[in-house]
């Protein structure tokens, strides 16, 4: 049973987004970390990099596999979690906290409305079982 915090929004690619004004903090969901297994490395972009919604901004690697991570919003990277590769297991243990990956300043905060709510993401997970 996945942990899906109420106060976040979600993408169908299993990213979570915390919206604070025009800043979107992004990571991967509990469901995603569980599917991946032990995370060993996260490849992150640089501050200033610009991404369109749906673009891959990096990748998260487990022992066995690599998965791209996609930004659900358009904008510039304003911060990256440069501690993450010191303790990549934070992505597994604290996916919504210490496992955060990037902060993006959204070009258009309206884009966040198109994201799934916690309830919708939970439905989405159930439907894809």
């Amino acid at each position: 049973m996945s942990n899906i915090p109420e106060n976040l929004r979600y993408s169908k690619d299993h990213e979570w987004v915390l919206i604070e004004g025009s800043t979107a903090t992004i990571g991967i969901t509990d469901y995603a970390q569980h599917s991946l297994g032990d995370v060993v490395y996260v490849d992150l972009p640089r501050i200033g990099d610009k991404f369109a919604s749906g673009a891959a901004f990096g990748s998260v690697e487990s022992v066995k596999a690599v998965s791209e991570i996609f930004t659900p919003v358009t904008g510039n990277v304003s911060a990256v979690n440069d501690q993450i590769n010191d303790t990549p297991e934070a992505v597994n243990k604290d996916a919504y906290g210490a496992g955060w990956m990037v902060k993006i300043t959204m070009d258009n905060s309206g884009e966040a409305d198109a994201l799934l709510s916690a309830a919708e993401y939970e439905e989405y997970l159930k439907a894809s079982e």
Partner: protein
Amino acid sequence: MSSEALKKTPLNESHRTLGGKMVDFGGWDMPVQYPAGVIEEHLRTRTAIGLFDVSHMGEIWVEGSDAIAFVNSLTTNDVRKLVVGQAHYSAFLNEEGGVVDDLLVYKFADDRLLLVVNAGTTEKDWEWINSHKGQFNVDLKNASADYCQIAIQGPKAIELAQRFTETELSSIKYYHFKEGTFDGVAAIISRTGYTGEDGFEIYAAADEAARIWSNLLDSGRDLGILPCGLAARNTLRLEAAMSLYGHELSDTISPLEANLGWICKLDKEAFIGKSVLETQKSSGLTRKLVGFEMTSPGIARDGYEVSVGDEKIGVVTSGSPAPYLKKNIGLALVKAEFANAGQEITIEVRGKRISARVVPTPFYKRSK
């Protein structure tokens, strides 16, 4: 493929009950890991005990007065050198000197050998062995479905295994085996494994598997036992620089290229592929398997290109993080002139060239 169509070992239910994440491994429904996760399973095998279901491996009996001569004609290693109760690592080659499969050969008697082959190649090997039977006086039996095989690996493996048998395990040397009883039933107890640790592989009747497995997990709790899936099996063998068929070995790779010259006994009589190995030996190899470690952040994966400057020199055959060594390592088949420890290389990781260095293998060697 739906899980109903996949082959199952006698421990399939046990894996599911333990929460194993099941995947299709060469047509078999196998656990890639359990809830503890790959890293924990790997570390526990190096420090305590890992328990592995390897029942999907194949077992082929070769019996008869020509057993040794027959197997010697098909394999690279010299069966005449085995004593009763000893096993060795070997390979079947095709006429081009490429590897059909790697295997273990166990000598039970002069007229009784057991071949243990890979899970994904059992059928191929069975047909290939039969097709070469010719005039040899041998009876062949594919007994794969009759056996379960459970590997108990790690520094505390012998302590745990001893609780299950009267056989004095300390008297079984590495790559030797005894027939005895294990958990009250007939078993072959083999001091072999694929992890680089001390340990045993137990062959018993398939229908005894679930009980033996469960008893080992219960009894081994005080010693720190964990069940381990295929992902940990792979990271463990990679740290030990052991080859995996389909990666370091294939029908287009010669055992000499894969650093397996030590199992190729060119002083024995003719075997399939021998003349190709002799030619390779005299004219020198054009490519060789090397170990490498990443020297910048990044993980090399199977199939990634290896370069020196702008020259492509080879390909990664197996690449992964190494949980015990805490590095990212791999094996690569590269042009022979670059196959030297210390050689700086780059590996293309999803469009970026990441630096790495050729290192001696094995990456990990146990202390005793």
